[in-house]
């Protein structure tokens, strides 16, 4: 746990905003709080360049209500995983691609685009992943408000009831 705590302390020292937002969960696990884009980019560059967190395992997309969350799982040579979190508002879900630092994140970032509707700037060109061609635009299945029962597989359309019709149904009941 000494190594983990030392990493957390060094990061809190370097980045004031991390002071109360970094936790050593247990041996080999460090979690941060959600950071805005600029803060996040500064921390991840420092981790990659100065602290030996040269391996990325994954980026997990999450739905945080008004925001989208992106949890980057990075590790160093000792196998300590640091979960660095970034968030962006759903109204403007722009994040920077981290494939320049970690090329192995390409497929995972494509998934954020398809399943969460994130706009990943700087993502290399390539086939979409994992949704099929013809998937309805603006329909992001891993967001919490997306309900599979409103998706028609035959016509590939997503038809959620409008807010008004839902209210009408409730009042009739």
């Amino acid at each position, binding site marked *: 746990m000494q190594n983990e705590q030392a990493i957390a302390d060094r990061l809190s020292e370097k980045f004031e905003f991390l002071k109360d937002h970094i936790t050593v*969960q*247990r041996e*080999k*696990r460090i*979690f941060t709080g959600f950071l805005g884009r600029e803060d996040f980019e500064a921390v991840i560059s420092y981790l990659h360049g100065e602290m030996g967190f*040269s*391996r*990325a*395992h*994954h980026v*997990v*997309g*999450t*739905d945080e209500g008004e925001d989208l969350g992106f*949890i980057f*799982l990075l590790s160093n040579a000792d*196998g300590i*995983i640091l*979960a660095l979190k970034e968030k962006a508002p759903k109204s403007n879900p722009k994040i920077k691609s981290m494939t320049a630092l*970690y*090329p*192995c994140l*390409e*497929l*995972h970032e494509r998934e954020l685009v398809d399943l969460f509707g994130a706009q990943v700037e700087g993502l290399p060109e*390539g*086939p*979409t*992943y*994992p*949704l*099929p061609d013809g998937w309805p635009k603006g329909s992001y*299945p*891993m967001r*919490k408000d*997306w309900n*599979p029962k409103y998706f028609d597989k035959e016509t590939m359309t997503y038809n959620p009831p409008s807010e008004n019709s839902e209210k009408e149904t409730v009042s009739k009941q």
Partner: protein
Amino acid sequence: MNEKNRVVIPIGPQHPSLKEPASFLITLEGEKVVNAVVGVGYNHRGLEKACESRTYIQDLYIIERVCGICSHTHSTAFCQGIEELAGLKIPKRAAYIRVIVAELERLHSHLLWLGVAGHEIGFDTLFMYSWRDRERVLDMLAAMCGNRVNYGINTIGGVRRDFDAAMLRDVLKMADVLQEQLKYYLDLASTEATLIARLSGVGKLSKEDVLRFGSVGPVARAADVGDDTRVKEPYAAYGEIPVKVITDTHADVFGRTLVRIKEMIESLEIIRFCVKNLPDGDIAVKAPRKIPAGEMISRTEAPRGEDIHFIRSDGSDIPERIRVRAPTEVNWHGMRYMLEGQYLADVPITIAAIDPCYSCTDRAIVIRSDDQTDVTDWQGLRQYSIDWYQKRGVNVPSVKMPESKKYF
């Protein structure tokens, strides 16, 4: 040769080497690959979304079906993540049973790969030999767990079945038989001139590139990157078991072959150790229905490499977010660089050499809503496909087919 002479060949999504879908856009200059674009995602059916509307125990059955080959590694990662969130300590006997099944799974997965690799290079005798031996492992798994794949051994808090003395005796007998076979395969792979010539230098991925693209499992270990979750972050009972990490320096398909065969021999040693030192006692502790709120990252070493599960609980009996990062998902990133500069004829074996698992990558699940079991004969299947196309406005020419042969 200038760019005008380049030929682009789309391969797939019917796969050139395995029976799962992926597309490869290969650009050739003569016989040499100059560019490759990998397209995956054909099997994505929303498994993680399905988990968000079911309880933890229901999700266990879905998670076990992420992959038909390494189902145990996924259910182990899932269970141990939840157990950690809930503060459960599983009995030692359960931890050892998890390891025995995990190593049997590694054996049958690697034997499957060895057969596929043999087939891809026209060495079908190796294919038949290794798949025959794989049956020994599958029979053992069926006897111990009740099923050849999707063993259903894990549960939250431990394991669901205990192993009796007769089963453990049979495992040791199987291990002895397999040991001889594996020694033969290792001897064959290290000395057979045709095999060495066919696999050496094919699908190269250097140590630097492995680290850059985050490759895992035998692909990384064949490039002298000694990452193995069983040692790096011991889980289940691995902390008490001596595990030798197998590495190689060839960094090509030949190296991956040697690593996998040696890993199987090491798996037998682990199984023997577990059988000899299997503790007595309970096999499970009672798990709560509701899991305390929190986030957990759980790691296991699947046959294809590191498997990561991210679990977020909101304190209810239904998870808020489950994310499965299977090893093949990261191994795809290095594929383009393995293919570039290769001959077209080497493409199938290079793809097969990462032991790709598309269902893992795409997280597939097939749900059968009926409770009846139907067996469809050839004619029925043909009629189904004709109807399917006609519904979509495609007129299939009415080709007369010979009378159906009864297979079932």
